[in-house]
């Protein structure tokens, strides 16, 4: 005799033995029936069966019968589970000691098959396109760079390559300073040997840490620091241009009065190299910086403090009043660190990007982020929490880089095209993330291993 039955076979057996009713038999213990997937039982049969209590009796009796026929009782028990009934059900049977007083109407009905469904992804298309901006110029183009970098060109949200291709992936610039800056220890230790030599620093950033570009910050020109004259700072620009063959971003000191002069001078000595001048802001003489860029063929970084309307205004000034070509403007809507206003930075950038994609001609420019700002967060550099109730923060050399990484990746999802960063480990991981989301990494790993891993 077969070990497993379908219900149909069951009834055939009943017929075969001419069984209509069995008397004087009882079943001890709870009787449960379960139907396993793939059991060939017509759901209608089950439902019909369930509707009729005498069948339940029948099954009970028949269970005993099968038992005598050397059948495994467990099979019947499994069957009953699928019906969701605890047997004995129906009318109380005085012979059965385990009778439960309540009669449960079976509720659980498990369908035989999955209901077929088709997932139709909702399509989104934007009418606008982010401007393409190229940094650096080769010899053929009037500069001396061996590589140029193009950013922008997006027609979809960042990494939504299922909507539209991403023509240029975000790139990473490493910060270089023309005098020792204040740096967190975890960052400083990677640059200790080059802190007094911006050209060597730039070389190290490119060769060892994989920088796509270099940002040279001329902070020595700050009247509150060394007050170095613009013409002297410009010499550092020339040195760095010779030291590396990647495109350059040139930053001032942040002094609103002096920066226009410093950046003008830098623009002049970098003529033809298509550097990015960082930055023009609303509260300084943006016109001078815009004009310098126009005159010497550079790009301007239009920097505003987390305000979409100010960003529109400054961009418009640079485009309309200065007459800067549309392929020569990149925006910095300001980066706040994780935990220190990242929510504002993220949403501001996301809104700017969406406006650009929707066709706002004042906002459809690539975005740059000063991701190094992440190191301003105390969680990135402080030895441990000053709050006593806090769970200890753990080693800061591990906290710092991940703080920069998470700040960067969040803004990458908002649409940032250029990251200015510092920690080599953070640079490497953010590159990995960018390449992963862009589908450039073929590596694979088992997505189920975690379910049963021990450790």
């Amino acid at each position: 005799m077969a070990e497993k039955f379908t219900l149909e076979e069951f009834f055939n057996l009943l017929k075969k033995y001419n069984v209509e009713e069995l008397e004087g038999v009882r079943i001890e213990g709870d009787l449960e029936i379960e139907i396993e997937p793939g059991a060939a039982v017509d759901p209608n049969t089950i439902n019909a069966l369930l509707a009729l209590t005498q069948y339940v009796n029948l099954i009970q009796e028949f269970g005993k019968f099968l038992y005598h026929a050397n059948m495994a009782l467990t099979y019947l028990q499994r069957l009953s589970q699928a019906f969701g009934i605890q047997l004995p059900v129906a009318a109380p049977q005085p012979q059965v000691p385990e009778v439960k007083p309540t009669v449960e109407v079976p509720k659980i009905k498990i369908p035989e098959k999955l209901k077929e469904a088709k997932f139709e992804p909702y399509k989104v298309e934007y009418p606008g396109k982010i401007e393409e901006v190229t940094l650096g110029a080769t010899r053929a183009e009037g500069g001396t760079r061996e590589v140029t970098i193009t950013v922008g060109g997006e027609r979809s949200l960042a990494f939504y390559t299922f909507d539209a291709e991403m023509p240029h992936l975000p790139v990473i610039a490493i910060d270089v300073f023309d005098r020792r800056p204040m740096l967190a220890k975890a960052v400083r230790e990677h640059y200790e040997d080059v802190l007094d030599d911006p050209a060597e620093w730039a070389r190290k950033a490119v060769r060892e840490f994989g920088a796509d570009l270099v940002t040279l910050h001329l902070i020595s020109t700050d009247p509150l620091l060394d007050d170095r004259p613009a013409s002297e700072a410009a010499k550092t620009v020339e040195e760095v241009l010779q030291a590396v063959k990647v495109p350059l971003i040139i930053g001032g000191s942040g002094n609103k009065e002096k920066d226009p002069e410093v950046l003008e001078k830098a623009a002049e000595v970098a003529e033809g190299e298509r550097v990015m001048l960082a930055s023009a802001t609303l509260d300084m003489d943006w016109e001078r910086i815009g004009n310098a860029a126009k005159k010497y063929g550079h790009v301007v970084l239009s920097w505003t403090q987390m305000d979409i309307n100010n960003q529109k205004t400054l961009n418009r000034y640079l485009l309309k009043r200065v007459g800067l070509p549309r392929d020569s403007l990149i925006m910095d809507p300001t980066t706040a660190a994780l935990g220190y206003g990242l929510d504002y930075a993220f949403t501001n950038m996301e809104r700017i990007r969406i406006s650009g994609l929707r066709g706002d001609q004042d906002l459809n420019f690539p975005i740059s982020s000063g991701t190094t700002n992440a190191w301003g967060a105390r969680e990135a550099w402080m030895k441990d929490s000053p709050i006593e109730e806090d769970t200890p923060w753990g080693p800061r050399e591990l906290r710092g880089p991940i703080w920069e990484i998470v700040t960067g990746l969040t803004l990458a999802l908002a649409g940032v095209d250029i990251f200015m960063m510092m920690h080599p480990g953070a640079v490497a991981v953010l590159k990995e993330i960018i390449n992963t989301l862009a589908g450039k990494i073929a590596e694979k790993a088992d997505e189920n291993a975690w379910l049963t891993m021990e450790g």
Partner: protein
Amino acid sequence: MKVKSPLEIYRYLPQTNCGECGYDTCMSFAAQIIERTVKPTDCPPLVKEAEKNPKVKKKLEELIEITSPEVKEVIIGKGDKAVKIGGEDVLHRHELTFFNPTALFYDVWDTLDDKEIDERCSKVVEYRKFYVGEFLTLDGIAVRCTSNDPKRFREVVKRVAGYGKPMILVSLNPECMRAALEEVAEERPLIYAATEDNWREFLELALEFKVPVVVRSKDLNKLKSLAVTFKEAGVEDIVLDPVTEPVGEGLKGTFERVIQLRRTAILGEDKDVAYPIMITPIAAWALEADEVSKAYWETVIASIFIVKYGDVMILHCLEPYAIMPIVTLRYNIYTDPRTPVQVEPGLREINNPSPDDPVFITTNFALTYYTVESDLTSGNIKGWLLVLDTEGLGVEVSVAGGQFTAAKVKDLIKETKIEEKVNHRYLIIPGLAARLQGAIEDETGWKVLVGPMDSGRIKGWLEQHWPPKEK
């Protein structure tokens, strides 16, 4: 939510302004529904009337329909420790806000010994990080069945339940899951997961024990099929797991699946996929790499999907360096962009200061304020803290942006009458506002001391600089 204005809701309400709901007018009640602080069923007359009158009942049902979130809200756990996931209405936080922060579940597994289980559970329960006036914490514990032994799983699940946190039970084996549910179904754990292979048993378990269930498939047609089948069989609380592939093109595929699911749910109004989304950053631990790299990558995966639509996560690494960025990012992304994070400007007295104690100034950006305030309080520093209205901006940004100026400092000194409360004229400004030193001195006539860049260092700084040497 289909409606955007209280007016659209108002017409469904009794319009009697009876006040039984706790609000003065039906219109303000309608506005609260838009804010999602109350539900249509919080209107007693409407509910009572609906019981009697089928027409009103239909109206109420319609109102519930048009005011329910686009994405189904699912509750894991019970009582005041329960965690809500899903319930989202928009794709970008600036369009409204994100409502229910991604729930973070950290794992234990049943082949650990009891002591190790207790250690991990305690870490999850005790984790706290001070942030903006409150403590960030973790939501729950995921118990993985690695023994494949129903008895052991049941024991461990019982042990973990003792910690009182919401739970996710992880096992693809229905027998193990049944054993665990017999023990803790009352706690309303989320069960993980129904797949193409075990869905019938899991469907039965979800119905029998009335617990929320995760359906899991990489194939979005299959995932939707599972969700539809479960829904039609009577399961309300469904979570979708489009499978987190930890690396490479697989991770890119995961990114695409998650975005397509959420976008199709909200913009495509496909109710069959309008459920919370499960992400398992723990999958990163399958990589061949050192511990720190795996922990970093787990944090990376978690971060990507905190920004993009992950509603509930299972994570592994309990090192604070891995947890801290995750809980902080979650807070940031789920902060309501409609209400700026700021505090009342004015004067705060810290630790009952005397007239000889120092006067500090900071901004009314909540993060800055609470950081400074808690550093002073927990450092037992007595002092007077002036809080300047910088429109909710931090020190660096407000100095650069002109919200933190000498003139405003002068006004604040006047308004708070601080000159009547202290015997000296020394103001300590934040290190990041150093450039305002001269201007504030000129404007106010106070002597300005430049404090440290971070308020965590005020204590050490005071030892050097207070009381001031020159009088």
